[in-house]
Structures are given as structure tokens and as C-alpha cells.
């Protein structure tokens, strides 16, 4: 808990971060930045869990534990996505969405 800052401010910020992530995912044309947007989404949820736990339900630690798992899984996800992107880069020498797309409709 932080003195002088209520849960409303923090939840507002995490929600804004979440939607920045969604917006970035939908508009960005580069695979790496799309991956960054997904990280924003996951981190917004992780902060959400910690904040809700400490402010509203401090008697047990479910939210904090959940956020630890989220961080671990986010790392695994990023590693796998970067591996696939590197392989794609070897084949197309580009990480732009427009250059990689061949299959449509």
C-alpha cells in the first residue's frame, strides 16, 4: 500500500496500459512492437492482481501468487515468439507484417 494513493488511481493507470497494449497490437506494423504490446497487456494484468490483493483483500496472497505465475509465463511466451520471429527473419529477411503475409482470406 502506498500512502496518499488510492486504488482508483492505480486501477485507472493499469486499465489505460491495457488498452494502449490492445491499440498497439492492432495498429503496429512490426512484429517486435506487436510483441511489446502484448507485454503491456500481461503486465497490466499482473499489476492489477497485486494491487487488488494488497488494497482490497490483504488477508491472503492469491493475487500476488497469480502475478508471479503471469511473469513466468510472459517470459516463456516472449522467448517462443522471438524464436519464431528469428526463424521468420531468416526466411524473409524482414519483421514487417506486410512482408511476411502471404496467406489471406
Amino acid at each position, binding site marked *: 500500500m502506498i500512502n496518499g494513493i488510492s486504488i482508483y488511481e492505480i*486501477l485507472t493507470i493499469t486499465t489505460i496500459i*491495457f488498452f494502449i*497494449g*490492445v491499440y498497439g*497490437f492492432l495498429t503496429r506494423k512490426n*512484429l517486435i512492437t*506487436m*510483441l511489446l504490446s*502484448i507485454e503491456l*497487456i*500481461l503486465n*497490466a*494484468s499482473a499489476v*492489477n*492482481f497485486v494491487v*487488488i490483493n494488497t488494497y*482490497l*483483500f490483504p488477508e491472503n496472497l*492469491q*493475487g500476488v*501468487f*497469480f502475478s508471479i*505465475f*503471469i511473469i513466468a*509465463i510472459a517470459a*516463456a*511466451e516472449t522467448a*517462443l*515468439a522471438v*524464436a*519464431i*520471429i528469428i*526463424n*521468420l527473419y531468416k*526466411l*524473409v529477411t524482414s519483421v514487417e507484417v506486410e512482408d*511476411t*503475409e*502471404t*496467406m*489471406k*482470406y
Partner: protein
Amino acid sequence: MTLESFLLMRQELVLLAVILLLVIGEIFSNNKKGLLNFAIGLFVVHTVIGFLPMQEGTVFGGMFRSTSLIHLFKNVLNVGVLIILLQSADWIKEKVVPENKSTEFFILMFSSLLGMYYMISAGDFLMFYLGLELSALPVAALVAYETTKRKSAEAGIKFILSAALASGTSLFGVSLLYATTGTIHFEEVAAIISYSNLSLLGFIFFFTGLAFKISLVPFHFWTADVYEGAPIGIASYLSVISKGAAVMILMIVLFTVMKPFDIVTHNMLYIVSLATMFVGNLFALRQQNMKRFLAFSSIAQAGFILLGIMSNDQLGVATVVYFVGIYVFTNLAAFGVVQSISLQTGKENIDDYNGLYRTNPKLSLVMMLALFSLAGIPPVAGFFGKFFLFTAAASQGMYLLVFLAVVNVTISLYYYLLVIRAMFLRKSKTAIPYFDNKIYMKLGLVIAVVGILFIGLYSPIYDYIFEISKL
């Protein structure tokens, strides 16, 4: 905790043992082709052990639960994966073994199956999320498995990015649900949760992640591309196993946890189901590639499954499980034929199938049976599956929806018959020449066909499912 309650996780433990044995086998063996037989043999043992009866109960303070229905569902998934392994065996032998990465294929696939076990057995949101990710990440690696093929890499990146977005959204929804209830256990959430704007938002975000896995319509864009680019065995895995497990957990969560949202759920599923059926069927009409064709057909089938989920009672649960069981065998038969032809000749378009009956009558018959079952023509199992689904929906008074679903069945019949016409009526000078399938592929197709015929005609199966259909 006693050993007895620990053994409720028998399926998971045996599968974990299989994975570890494969790792050890990879280290100590010199004969990589032998490992293929070793892996399939181990999985057969696992499948057989799975059919032994098991108790009901919960472990780890309710995080992991097992009921007869979940146990049965795991067995269905096992049989499905076994068929996929048999059908992919030749592909693995020809393409994967020379690159010396066949064991990873099995380890990834079994890990993903393990994730699905944990997902459908989940008793709280943490377990659910871990299962969801464990089932999705290895599949992404498998989709991008043919590292020299451009399409495979493209499909892989599409799958991992959209899967991550969907699960991230779902996670944000879970955090909102946690904010309203203060707990992540399904049972406690069900007791506390009430209708409010925040919990409703959380519920809808949560639904997104599962809708992505089932490829319901607003979230279906990845499906056709991924199926086309992925190795065919993995495409069938995605369309059958992954979808089936997601349907099961969606049903459990909707019925047990999200009770206060009954009306919202009903309206939402109504619209999503209609959109899924129409989009799937109408897009399937214009496909030329068999994999894309089956992808859109599987989207349409997901729309039919929602009909059963909407009816929200014992009948609904039983029909959905029954339909998924039939769908596993049916779709795998169709994918098996596509895979065997693609492996032998590299052809995947519907036009390439012209005159197939004259050269390969057995394969054409299997394909015909599978397509008839997908369309729901009476003597085969697919008809009974659809019939029960429509009965369950009609018993809730959703006559308009059932009518529109029947319209969709008619549309689907048209494009399934296009393939059958190509195989049986069209003639072609460049028809695919006769070839003989290897033993594993034959076995895979035979099990699928026996499943299609047996489940439809042997009614005690449905009675048994109905009896144990409590969530």
C-alpha cells in the same frame, strides 16, 4: 493428502512419465527411427491405462478436480491424439527424423496434451490459466515446426501473437473478476459473484480467451491461415483436441461459475453461435485448398456446438460431450485422408481430387464417410450428434435458432458435396495415381472410421454419457 487422493491425477502422472521416458530415450538411443515406435507404443499404453475406472474428487484444496465426465473427456482426447500420432507417423519418418528432431515433436505434443488435462480439470483460475498456456505454447512451436518452410513460420507467428493477445485479455478479465469476489477458486467465486458492471466486463474479457481457442467468430481470423501453414497433423490437433478441451472448460465455467450472467450468456452465445455458423459456412464455399476448407468447416461446427452449450442443463452437457466425441473421429478421418494424399503427392486443392475414386477407392470412401458425418447424413454418427444438439436447443424453446442452424446444415451439405462430386463424378487425366498407405496411416484411418460408425450406432454410449453428465 493421501496416496489415494493423489492418484486422482493418474492420467497426468502417467503422461508425465511418458514425457520423461522420451527424454531419457532421446539421450541414450542411437536409433532415431526406433524412437518413433517407442513414443507411439508408450502413448498406446497411456491410452489403455486411461480407460481404467477412476474415482471422483478434488486434490490440492480444490485446485484440481476430477469427475467421471472429465475423466471420460480425457480419454476422448487420448484417443484423438493417438489417431493423430498414427496418421502423422509417416510424415515424421520422412520429414522430421532426417532433421533429427522427432523426439521434440512428441514431447511438445504431449506437453500440450498435459496442459489440456490440467485446463479441463482446473478448480481455480490459476490452474485454468496455467493449463491454457501450457496447452497453447507447445502448439505454437509445433505450428512453426517446419523451419525451412515460409508458410509454417508465418502460421507460427500468427498463432503465437493472437494466442498471446487472447490469453492476455482473458487474464485481465480474471483480474477484474478477482476484484469483485476476492478469490480465484471456482466454487467460492460461484458463491460470491453477483451481477455488476465490473464483473460483467471481467466475464466478457474472460470469454475472449476461450472463444479464441474454439475459434468462434469475432476471434476466428487466425484459424484458416494457421491450418494452411501448419503441418497437417498439427492442424488436425488444433481443430479437434485443442477445440474440444476448450469447449469442455467453457461449459464448466459457464454452468458452475457464471450463474448470475445467465441471460447475458444466453444472448451472447445466441449471436456468436449464429455468426459463427454463417461465417464459417459461407467462407467455406469459396475455398480451394482442402486445409482452409476444413478450417472453415470446423469453425461452422463450433457454432453448432454452442447450440448445446446454450441449453444449459444435463441434456445440453451430454449432447455437447457426445458431439465432441463424434467430431473428434469424423474430423480426424477427413484430415487423415488429406494428409495421406498430401504426403504422397503434395497436392492439397479440391481440384486435385478429381477422379480420386477411380484410382484410390478406399481413400475416397473414407473421405465420403467423414464428409457425410460432418454434414449430418443419417446412417453415420454425425447425424445423431447434430440431432441431439438440435433437440437440446429446441427443448429450451429456441426454435428460430434451430431453424437457422438447419439452414446452415443445408449450406454445409452443398460444399461437402462439392468435394464428393470432385472425387466421384469428375474425371481427370491428371488424377492422383494409386498409392498404398503405410501401416500406421491405415491404422489411424481405420480407428477413425470405426469410431464414426460405432459411436453413432451403439446407443449405450450416449446413455452412459447422459448418466455421468454432472459438472
